[in-house]
């Protein structure tokens, strides 16, 4: 039954005490000759012995009228709502109905109860059922005998681990995590050069196990991956180890509970694990970047399942990566780096920054190969116990970087092919030069990790780093 274009509508439910209380008022309205339609959310026999109650147990009217609480009184004129009162408030009900003295026997006001249509978990189903949301993706029906988890494996949608089946309701819930339109194109994903919409990101985020609040971070990561400077296509196709590493900065990382502390690169944190995985699933499913096809990695790295962490900004002796790159302190950002894996740095004895810088330089020298300069970029991840050494000595991040640059100037004679009995190296013509280990801007420093342990880490990059290949990129996260 449709709601009449003119008259009053009351949406109520039996289990609400306030709804029960206002039944005499409803009779008063009818007695005054006003047209009144009653929609009952839980029992069409409520109010008792009331003729013509609209059965709204399917919540169609409640959804379309955007009912938040019951009872709700609405005045309709020419098919449009012109006034509304929520719960019982005598003055409001008198104003909406234009009936003086309405409900004089009742208390002045009583709050109502929550509408069934806004019960947790139901809103998305109603939005789908009553056309409040449109999803563009093709529907895939799994046969009744097929386990839905196996169906996702069978269709090649997973990274080798089970995924959460992307049902319509789950995707609608995921889309609630962003204010962006579901049909907005986030980027063009190689190798298929397919347009990736917010909806496709949301589908893959569901599969990865994300919460809706992570979605803006995943979208920013996809945007960053699509920047030309990041060179995702080449990164996918390379025989080298690398894959996208995500570093999240700013209040958003803390708000969603990302781990920047104990075991920051490791397992166990849902946000870290699923945000990184969602990006990889977008690359796999939307872009078509699959191992053995376009992805030709000789060995790969476990980080290609997921590699995502937050920078520990509150415990850091230095400005954050995001601030260093020109973002405001309150901004939340995603940085993408073509990383190849984690190389540990062990130093339990250095208590002065010069000694620790020398340890770092010695370890950084070995990135990719100790005789290969300016090929792979690197992220140096300084842990709290090492960070303390620099803080106490008053070393800024810039000073550490400057010292590392000095320590990583390498005589060409040590790098040329054949030197130190190793055929790998730079051409003989460079024997009389001095070469930096890293190209300008090729070494970044961030702060993360647990508070115990005099270890830091190198995330080594792709050997095609820089303008010839991939450069780390940063994107601000938008809701």
């Amino acid at each position, binding site marked *: 039954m449709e709601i009449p274009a003119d008259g009053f509508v009351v949406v109520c439910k039996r289990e609400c005490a306030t709804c029960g209380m206002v039944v005499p008022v409803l009779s008063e309205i009818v007695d005054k000759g006003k047209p009144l339609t009653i929609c009952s959310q839980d029992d069409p026999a409520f109010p008792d012995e009331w003729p013509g109650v609209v059965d709204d147990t399917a919540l169609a009217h409640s959804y379309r009228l955007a009912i938040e609480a019951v009872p709700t009184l609405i005045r309709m004129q020419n098919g449009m709502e012109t006034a509304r009162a929520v719960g019982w408030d005598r003055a409001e009900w008198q104003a909406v109905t234009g009936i003086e003295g309405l409900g004089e026997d009742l208390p002045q006001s009583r709050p109502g109860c929550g509408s069934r249509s806004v019960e947790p978990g139901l809103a998305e189903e109603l939005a789908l059922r009553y056309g409040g949301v449109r999803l563009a993706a093709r*529907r895939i029906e799994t*046969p009744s005998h097929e386990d839905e988890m196996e169906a996702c494996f069978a269709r090649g949608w997973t990274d080798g681990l089970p995924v959460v089946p992307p049902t319509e309701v789950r995707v609608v819930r995921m889309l609630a995590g962003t204010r962006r339109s579901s049909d907005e194109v986030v980027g063009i994903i190689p190798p298929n050069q397919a347009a990736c919409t917010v909806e496709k990101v949301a589908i893959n985020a569901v599969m990865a196990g994300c919460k809706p609040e992570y979605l803006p971070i995943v979208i920013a990561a996809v945007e960053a991956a699509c920047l030309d400077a990041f060179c995702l296509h080449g990164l996918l196709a390379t025989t080298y180890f690398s894959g996208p590493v995500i570093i999240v900065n700013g209040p958003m990382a803390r708000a969603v509970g990302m781990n920047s502390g104990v075991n920051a690169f490791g397992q166990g944190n849902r946000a870290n694990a699923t945000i990184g995985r969602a990006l990889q699933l977008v690359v796999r499913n939307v872009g078509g970047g699959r191992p053995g096809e376009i992805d030709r990695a000789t060995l790969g790295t476990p980080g290609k399942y997921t590699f995502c962490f937050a920078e520990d900004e509150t415990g850091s002796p230095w400005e954050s990566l995001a601030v260093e790159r020109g973002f405001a302190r309150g901004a939340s950002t995603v940085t993408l780096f073509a990383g190849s894996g984690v190389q540990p740095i062990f130093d339990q004895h250095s208590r002065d920054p010069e000694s620790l810088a020398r340890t770092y330089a010695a370890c950084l020298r070995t990135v990719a190969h100790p005789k290969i300069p300016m090929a792979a970029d690197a992220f140096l991840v300084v842990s709290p116990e090492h960070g303390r050494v620099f803080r106490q000595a008053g070393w800024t991040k810039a000073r550490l970087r400057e010292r590392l640059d000095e320590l990583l100037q390498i005589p060409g004679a040590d790098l040329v092919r054949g030197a130190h009995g190793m055929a790998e190296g730079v051409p003989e013509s460079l024997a009389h030069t001095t070469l930096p280990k890293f190209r300008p801007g090729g070494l970044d420093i961030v702060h993360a990790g647990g508070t115990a342990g005099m270890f830091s880490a190198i995330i080594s990059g792709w050997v095609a780093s820089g303008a010839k290949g991939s450069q780390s990129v940063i994107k601000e996260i938008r809701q």
Partner: protein
Amino acid sequence: MNKGMVLLDPTAELAPARRVRLPRPKELAGQCVGLLDISKARGDVFLDEIESRLRADGVSVRRYQKPTFARVAPVALMQQISAECQVVIEALAD
């Protein structure tokens, strides 16, 4: 087991929604053909005939049998067949 689900396609939708069958072999020369008897009556008669014709054409053949037609093949048998054969002919007799 579930009642069947509607899932949203996470891909760029460049491939058909129905999973594509593996490509059919253009010829059997050089392939090993598995003949699977599912243990239904006279399935062996049918497969004996197929085997003799394939062998006459010089095709290598291996024979397999499910313990019972009422149940899916044991995992070990499926793995053995997929490791040893490129083509399988199953006798759904009756």
